[in-house]
């Protein structure tokens, strides 16, 4: 989990940037407004929070050592 989670966050972030760029070129396709975007985006946000909390905890543990 510790190893895979940052990659998932990174990959999803890149995917959303690609979709954002596509949306700028053709807003009519509604890449950013349909549920098919909103659900993975919510998952991404939750994963980023989890990853951030884990990273902060790791950093604190390192400092404690």
């Amino acid at each position, binding site marked *: 989990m510790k190893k895979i989670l940052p990659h998932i966050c990174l990959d999803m972030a890149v995917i959303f940037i690609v979709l954002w760029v596509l949306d700028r070129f053709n807003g009519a396709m509604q890449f950013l407004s349909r549920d*098919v975007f909103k659900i993975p985006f919510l998952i991404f946000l939750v994963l980023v929070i989890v990853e951030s909390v884990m990273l902060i905890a790791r950093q604190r543990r390192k400092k404690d050592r």
Partner: protein
Amino acid sequence: MDAMEEKEIPQKRKHRKKRMSVGKMVVLDLLAIIVGLNVFALFHHVLDYWDIHLGTTAPVPVVLATLPPEPTAEAAPVETPQQAEPTPETDAEPSPEPTPTRVYSGMWGEKFADKFTEGEVIQTENSYQSANVNITLERIEEPGLVYFVADVYISDLQYFGTAFATGEGNGEYNVGTEVQIDEIARRVNAIVAINGDHYKLHNGIVIRNGLLYSETPYEDVCALYTDGTLETYTKDELDLEALKSAAPWQVWSFGPGLLDAEGHAKTFYDSQSNVLSINPKNPRCAIGYYEPGHYCLVKVEGNRWGKFIGSYGMTFSELAAMFEARGCVRAYAFDGGRSAAMSWMGEFLSTNYDRGSFDIVYIADTPVVANTPKSAESEG
């Protein structure tokens, strides 16, 4: 101490060996991104499309406008003698062979009398003339450009219809997928038809043949009112309640509106129309408005998948300038690009057509039969 360090070093080396190289990691991440985008495309383009567009039940439409009953050619002769009787001139000078009074069809039958016949249908390869409609189709060629203009006179708004892709008659809202324009045109007996605003893609304000189906503002709006006037609005200008209370016969959401209030070509378009990918030379479909009862439907040919087919298409500015030059006072672009399509006499006309239509705008010689809200029927 030295012995311990010696023990640690192989362990670290072993640990390093287990680590994935940066290059491999980047490749795997890229693969994951590609897979992710494809999964998104699967849901966005295929599964979500099916769910939203094929499986959704249509909302109950609200009747916003109905057209006044048209004085038909059969009914009118009963009225004409009554109108003729009170005039003293006819009594004073009785003619030996009284010429029958011409019966005009619809709201604008008399106004455009010279455009309509007295009942017969005159049809050529590129024109159609009857007591109700007069349509002339032009194929215009300029260097690197080909476009079709259908100049339309109608005696009544009942001959100006819209139809959804799937279903009987004018079709059912939000049901089914794209259908080839010639197929829809044949179903509704359209003389000329162009694709509409591809409403399913956005479900903006959708009012068709007097029925309101959806009222979420989306981009520029075009309204054709029951008095035959056509008006365009930007999303910011639009007053939805005022629009609804004005009883529009048709409302489309796409655009942009191409001419300003004075009928001059706009130099700036609100909405997504300024976006680079949409504004270059492209196949186009649009409607122009001269005055109530007189319109034109335009289809501009353009490249297909970047392949030159004799026409590069038009930018919005060029399209707007063309409408201004033709004397239109309002003009509005429907969905273009791969959606742009036109049919004439039920036959597909354009050459760059490769996507079906969700909805069409058409002119027919038979009155449009407006859909009736099923629930309203049962309630009423």
